[in-house]
């Protein structure tokens, strides 16, 4: 049993999907080995703790994909995305083979392990690969639903698992691959948020109201393909957008929001993300977030600093 509920859901989903689909194969680099044993026992011959050789695991998984299997490669984010990047690019994406990457160690979840175990540029890297899909399922139901919807897409799909899920409750019916979710309706501010930071965005909503801001909260679990329609509709209404994400500023969701809204006149833009520097201090995940302003108060401070005081016109309430 994993202490991380999304990671545990990953293991549970592999078991359930694997029982029904004989083409699902799970390959790990000596991580999550024990929680995947139910899958290994239920699906003999389809679970491989290959070894600590991530590039080779990825190339090998692409070979299995060529043979009609749906491979899932799972280990710590930087070892897949950064070390194995060329294998992802050439063996999956260029050869037009489908596969699934399930990473743990999102951003700085392995906080005190330092930069070797951090990964906050994965969206940016994968966005350079034509056809690559990127998801950030930050609650168990999101992982289960998005995986079932996307694992046979025929494309390379990333499932970035955070160690600290958000606290918002979704039902499976709320989750559709490639579609954002409107969490709250407002009138003069859009908060586009992804990952665990949804909790902070929701927590800030009342206080923003007291500051005169009536905020749309748009939650994004699929970074690519991005629900540009939902984002544009909101920003067309509010003309102000704050993007909150646990990713480097360069190449993150914020860049996509800017591109998506570039032709809308008079839009004010701000973002809360990780500066384009290494996170070198030792701290807990919460400590890193606090220092970087990725918190309820950080959201309030950034709105005040960049947008000033608002004049709320409508507040329809949290959805």
């Amino acid at each position, binding site marked *: 049993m994993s202490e991380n509920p999304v990671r545990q859901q990953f293991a549970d989903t592999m078991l359930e999907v694997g029982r029904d689909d004989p083409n699902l*194969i799970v390959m790990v680099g000596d991580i999550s080995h024990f929680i995947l044993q139910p899958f290994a026992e239920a699906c003999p*011959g*389809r679970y*491989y703790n*290959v*070894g600590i*050789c991530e*590039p*080779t695991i990825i*190339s*090998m*998984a*692409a*070979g*299995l*994909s*060529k*043979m*009609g*299997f749906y*491979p899932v490669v799972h280990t710590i984010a930087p070892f897949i995305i950064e070390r194995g990047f*060329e*294998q992802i690019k*050439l*063996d999956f994406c*260029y*050869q*037009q083979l489908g596969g699934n990457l399930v990473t743990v160690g999102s951003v700085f979840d392995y906080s005190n392990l330092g930069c070797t175990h951090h990964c906050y540029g994965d969206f940016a890297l994968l966005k350079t690969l034509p056809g690559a899909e990127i998801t950030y399922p930050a609650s168990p139901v999101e992982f289960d639903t998005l995986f079932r919807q996307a694992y046979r897409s025929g494309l390379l799909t990333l499932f970035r698992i955070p160690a600290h899920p958000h606290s918002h409750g979704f039902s499976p019916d709320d989750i559709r691959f490639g579609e954002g979710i409107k969490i709250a309706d407002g009138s003069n501010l859009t908060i586009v948020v992804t990952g665990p930071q949804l909790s902070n965005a929701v927590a800030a909503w009342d206080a923003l109201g007291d500051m005169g801001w009536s905020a749309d909260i748009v939650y994004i679990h699929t970074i690519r393909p991005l629900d540009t329609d939902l984002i544009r509709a909101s920003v067309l209404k509010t003309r102000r957008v704050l993007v909150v994400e646990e990713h480097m500023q360069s190449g993150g969701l914020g860049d996509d929001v800017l591109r998506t809204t570039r032709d809308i006149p008079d839009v004010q833009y701000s973002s809360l993300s990780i500066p384009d520097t290494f996170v070198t201090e030792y701290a807990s995940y919460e400590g890193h977030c606090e220092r970087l302003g990725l918190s309820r108060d950080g959201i309030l401070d950034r709105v005040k600093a960049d947008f000033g005081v608002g004049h709320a016109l409508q507040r329809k309430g949290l959805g």
Partner: protein
Amino acid sequence: MDKDLRKKVVQMVFAGKDGHIPSSFSIVEILKVLYEHCLRFDAQNPEWPDRDYFILSKGHGCVALYVILHKHGFLTDQDIDLFCKPGGILGEHPDCTKVPGIEASTGSLGHGFPFAMGIALGLRLRRMANKVYALIGDGECNEGAIWETALVAANLNLGNLCCIVDNNGSAATILPVHPLKPKWEAFGWETQEINGHSESEIRAAFGRLSFSWEGKPKVIIANTLKGKGVPMLEGHGPWHHRIPDEQELEIIMEALS
């Protein structure tokens, strides 16, 4: 030594103004024997499910493979004429998204071999008897992924996978990997070492292989010479990626006549 196939390699490179002649020359006999005597394929149906799989992991030797694929009907005269030209499907590295008979897009060394291992594992899981061959270079053996794959394939007991090392001397001038035979044996592979330009030795080596779903993976270390057949081209030197001019073309063709 097959001079006619080498001439065709040189003609393609001269016409296309690109290509790696010496790296192609070192694998001519290996490919010739593979396609004439070992591989099951249907050139009219390259995706035939019962085919054997050949992956040229050292993708820069692809002109030799193109010549062989043309000989066996995968490629047309026009495909060959348009090598490295607009509108063509043949580039300086093999591309499985364009070229019939090419199983993997290679060029970046160290990718094709683990990819082939995945195919071999997939075939075993499907209980299919197709064989998998991957051809790597000795220079490519500098790549860590080659030895990762050697470890993993032996650990998985992939008896339906055969690796051929084109031991053409490239690595010796860069980062030596010799002796190769004891290394592969230490990694748990069934190992043979042959003269990679002797068609009879190559054929005999392939004939000794016993493919199975469970068993030691096999490696054939084929001792070859880069640029074999034309003294001016031989060895790991300036001809690695050089295109002959008209005068040099004459010298090469004369040496192959």
